[in-house]
C-alpha cells in the first residue's frame, strides 16, 4: 500500500506540474493519453530506478508499462523477481 501511495503521490506531482489537477484512478492512462509527456516518463523512470531499483537498461523501456498506477506496480514486481532470480 505504501508503495502504491508513493507512486500515486509522485504521479500527482507530475500532473500538477502540467497544470493537470484532474483525479486519476489506478487504471487511468497517463502517458498514452498525453496527460504526461516523454520528459515526465524519464523523470518517472529515474524515480523508479532510485526508489524501487528498477533497471530499465535490462528490462527495456516501454511507456505502456508505466502508463497506469497498476502497470507501474506490475513492473516493479517483475523487476524484483528479475533481480531475485
Amino acid at each position, binding site marked *: 500500500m505504501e508503495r502504491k501511495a508513493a507512486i500515486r503521490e509522485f504521479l500527482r506531482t507530475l*500532473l500538477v*506540474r*502540467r*497544470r*493537470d*489537477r*484532474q483525479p486519476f484512478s489506478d487504471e*487511468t*492512462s497517463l502517458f*498514452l*493519453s*498525453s*496527460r504526461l*509527456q*516523454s*520528459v515526465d*516518463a*524519464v523523470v518517472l*523512470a529515474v524515480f523508479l*530506478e532510485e526508489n524501487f531499483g528498477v533497471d*530499465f*537498461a535490462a528490462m*527495456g*523501456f*516501454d*511507456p*505502456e508499462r508505466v*502508463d497506469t498506477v497498476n502497470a507501474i506496480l506490475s513492473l516493479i514486481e517483475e523487476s524484483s523477481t528479475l533481480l531475485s532470480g
Partner: protein
Amino acid sequence: MTAVTDPLATAPVSAPERFFWGLRLIPRIETYPAVLAFAKTFVGKLMILGLFGIGLWYLNWHYRALTLVLAVITAFPRHRRVLLTASTLVWACGLWWRWADHPQLIQVAIVLVVAQLLFWLATGFRNSWFGRRPVAGLLAGFALLVLLANYLPRGGSLRTVSWHFLTVAAAYLWFIAYSLLDISSKSCDPFTLQVGTYQPFWGSTAVPFVKGAAYLRRIEAQNAEQLAVTQLKGLKLLVWAVILNLFLWKAFLPVVHAYIGIPLYDDIFDLSMRRAAFPWYLGWASLIAHFFERLAELSIMGHRIVASCRMAGFMALRNTCRPLASRSIAEFWNRYYYYFKELLVDCFFYPTFMRYFKRRGHWRLFAATFAAASFGNAFYHFFSSLHYIEELGFWRALEGFQSYIFYTIVLAVGISISQVRERKIENLSWIRGRLIPALCVTGFYCVLSIFGDSSKRYPIQECFRLLAHLVNLIH
C-alpha cells in the same frame, strides 16, 4: 481504449483563456446523448460515413476508395485489425503501382519479406546483439546499404535496382522500427497484424501515422459506444481540416500574397542568394507568412490522416494540437508534429536515456534529447531524401545537409534547456504567463525555420546571410 484527451484539456485556465479556448467552432457533439445514440444506429453510421466522404472529396483525397474501406471496417468491427492489414496491402498495391515512371511492387514485396525476417530474428534471438538492439541494428544496416549503393558504378543496372529498392525501403523503415520495438511488449502482435500499420490506408508520410501496432492495440474502440465516440471525433477533426483548408487557400494565401503583396519565402531566399536588395521588413513578413503556411499545411495533412484513422475505430491523438499556445520550446515540439516527435522519442530518446549517463543527472537528459532532436532528427531527414544522395553522392549530400544539422543542434539545445528550466506561472498574469512565452516560443521556431527546410538544400552561409539581412545587419 483509453480516454484520449487534448494536452490542454485538463489544465485549469484563467478568465481570458477560458474565453478563447472556450470558443468552439465545432460543438462537442460526441458528448450529446441523442447524437451518440444516433451514431450507433445503421442510419447514423451511414450518415457519418457519407459526411466523411464529402469531407474527403473536398480535400481531394481518394474519397471513393477510402470511404469504401472505412465502411467495410465499420461494418465488421470485430475483424478491424485483419481488415486493416488487408486494406493496407491493397492500398499499397495501388500506391506503389502508380510510383513515378514504373511500378515498384516487387520492391515492396522484398521489403516486407525482409521486415518479416528481421521481426523473426529479433523475436527468436532476443539475447543476440540484434535481439537486444533491433532498431539500432535496422537503422545502422540501412545506412550502410545506402553508403554501399553510393559506390556502385553510375549508369549500371545494379545501381538502378539498388536505389529503387532503397527508396521503397526508406518509405517503410520507421514502420518496421515500430514493429521491432513492439517485440518487447507482453502482447506483441504477430507480423501479419504488424503489416497493417506499414504505410496504412488512412495515409502517412515516412513518419508512421499513428505509431505502431502497440499504440493501435491501446487505442482501439472496444464497443459500439466507443466506436461511435471515435467516429464522431474523426468527423469533427475532418471538418477542422476542411475549415483550415478553406482558411488557408481562400483567405490567408490570397490576402497575404495577392492582396498585401508579401512575396513568397522561396522568392525572398532567391533574392538574398542573388544579392538583390529588398527591405528587411518584407523578409520578416515573408518568413512569418511561410511559417504559418507550413503550420496550416501540416495541420491539414495530420488532421485528415488522424480523422481517417479515427473513422476506422482507433482513437488516435491529433498530430498538431494548438502549437501556438505552447509556453516552452519542448511543448511546441510536442504539439507541432506529434507523431514525428514520438518516433524520435521511441527510437532515440528512451534507449539513450535508459542506457547511458545513468549517474550524470541533467547530462543524461541532455544526451537523450540530443540523440532524439538532433541525431535522430537529422538521420531521419537525411535518409528520407535519398534522391539527393543518389544524385550528389553520399558525402556531398551530407555536406549540403549542414544547415539542417545546424537546425537540429540549436533545436536540441533549446529543447534541453526548456526541459530543465521549470517556469512557475501560477501567480503570473495571462500576458506574462501565457502570451509572452507563446510569442517567444513561436518566434524561436519561426527564426530557426530559416535553417530547417529539409526539402531544399540551401548552403548554411546563405541561411546566415538571410538572417543577417532580416536583422538589418547587411543589405
